[in-house]
């Protein structure tokens, strides 16, 4: 009987759910949201990329050696592991802002996979280029040293001949 009266009473109660689009839902201040990046503070150590469990952060590198930070909010799991791995305070931080939905135009899955591979490629290319330049420089140095030595030897023999 008690149940019956409470059921009748419930008819005149307000709904317990939040009227979501018109009222905000509950969100704590330290909600785990998007990862922010401050380029001026970054020391380009790539520790966040190594720490990230799903691989949502990747750095690409151009031929001059300048690195660029790429972040995919659809791959990110918002665990904050990158922020904990970051040795420089403030370069990476977690905001309380939820991720916006991805649109079709963004091509967020295939585009990201392509970007990821390209970024790794670009780093490899830079490393190869660096190695090639270093080898070239070493070869040039060696050649210069050899030339110098030869010149010195030449000078020595000249002296000898002139002395003789």
């Amino acid at each position, binding site marked *: 009987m008690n149940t019956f009266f409470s059921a009748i009473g419930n008819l005149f109660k307000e709904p317990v759910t939040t009227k979501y689009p018109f009222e905000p839902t509950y969100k*704590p201040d330290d909600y*785990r949201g998007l990862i922010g990046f401050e380029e001026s503070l970054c020391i380009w150590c790539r520790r966040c990329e190594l720490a990230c469990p799903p691989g949502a952060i990747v750095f690409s590198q151009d031929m001059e050696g300048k690195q660029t930070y790429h972040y995919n909010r659809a791959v990110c*799991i918002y665990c904050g592991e990158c922020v904990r791995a970051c040795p420089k305070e403030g370069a990476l931080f977690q905001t309380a802002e939820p991720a916006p939905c991805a649109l079709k135009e963004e091509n967020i899955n295939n585009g990201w996979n392509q970007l990821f591979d390209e970024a790794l490629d670009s780093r490899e290319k830079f490393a190869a280029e660096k190695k090639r330049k270093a080898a070239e420089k070493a070869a040039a140095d060696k050649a210069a040293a050899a030339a110098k030595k030869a010149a010195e030897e030449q000078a020595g023999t000249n002296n000898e001949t002139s002395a003789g």
Partner: protein
Amino acid sequence: MGKQYEIPVGAQHISLLEPLHFRFTTENEKIVKTDANVFYVHRGIEQACCSKFKFRQVSFVVGRVCGLCSISHTTAYSQVAEKLLKIEIPRRAKYLRMLVIELDRIHSHLLCLSHVAENSGFEALFMKTMQYREFSMELLEAVCGNRIQYDFSIVGGVTRDLKPEVADMILKRLDHFMPQLEELIGIYKNNWTLSLKNKGVGRISKEDAMRLNVVGPFARAAGLAVDVRNETEDLLPWKEVGYEMITDTAGDVHARNMVRLREIEVSIRIIRNVIAGLPESDLVTETKAFPEGEATVRLEAPRGELFYYAKGNKTQVLERLKIKAPTFSNVAGMVHAFTNNEYASAPAIIASYDPCLSCTAR
């Protein structure tokens, strides 16, 4: 002996939350034999943990094994990794882990109860239980920053501290929830409609429960006093914070409901004690070591004993990780407890097992 019929239920069925297949052999309305297939959601997580991910990242991967007991999986993995690294975590981190595990237990038990009510044909009670459950989700969001998949435990400690205002909020919400819990206990205990579908249904005896190695609330409802919180003290100090074993003797769906409801009371007491006695210390023990050797860990998830085995070989990637989820241990008992019940009671019985197939199949 009458004519026998075979009735398949699942893998997709209106009363099932997750892909689970039962094949009931019935005689008139009585179930005489049951076969179960629980491996529909195999995702190869164990293999991924041993090949693709580094050992520090694995705690986030295993958190995705199951949505409901995410914190149990992360904590169990963190503990097993800490054993391999041979480190002791700070005391505050242990207390915070217990806090989140118990909050998680409240929300998981209330979800199970609501589904028992729904599958017994009591839709209004389902909605009421889900309405009362919302507070635990918001508390988890306030503590961990996310409603599900908390990512709270990491190898060596926990990720976030408990802020004083969040602690106040937890205590206030728990005070608000206590009369609601009493109301729920009253309904689940005394409601006549619900008792028709729950009392004496899906019964398992203590001897059978022991023989079939049943764990969790399923076993405790049959009178078998098994709880990892009662057995281990080395990793998380459960007895310090007021843990108490809850058992029942009937072993039917009603007894399981009552065990779950009374366990929520124990969880609330543990949460209050944890907040009152939260020790001051760091949150994480830092180490640069690599996992080496073998270790096992047992932890009481909401559904029962969760078992983790890991083997490390001094590299970033583990050599082997084995997860045994509580539902896997319960499959034999689940199949057994259907026998001699009406086929119409099967949905309520399935819900009362609280099966978690994502955990089982991994």
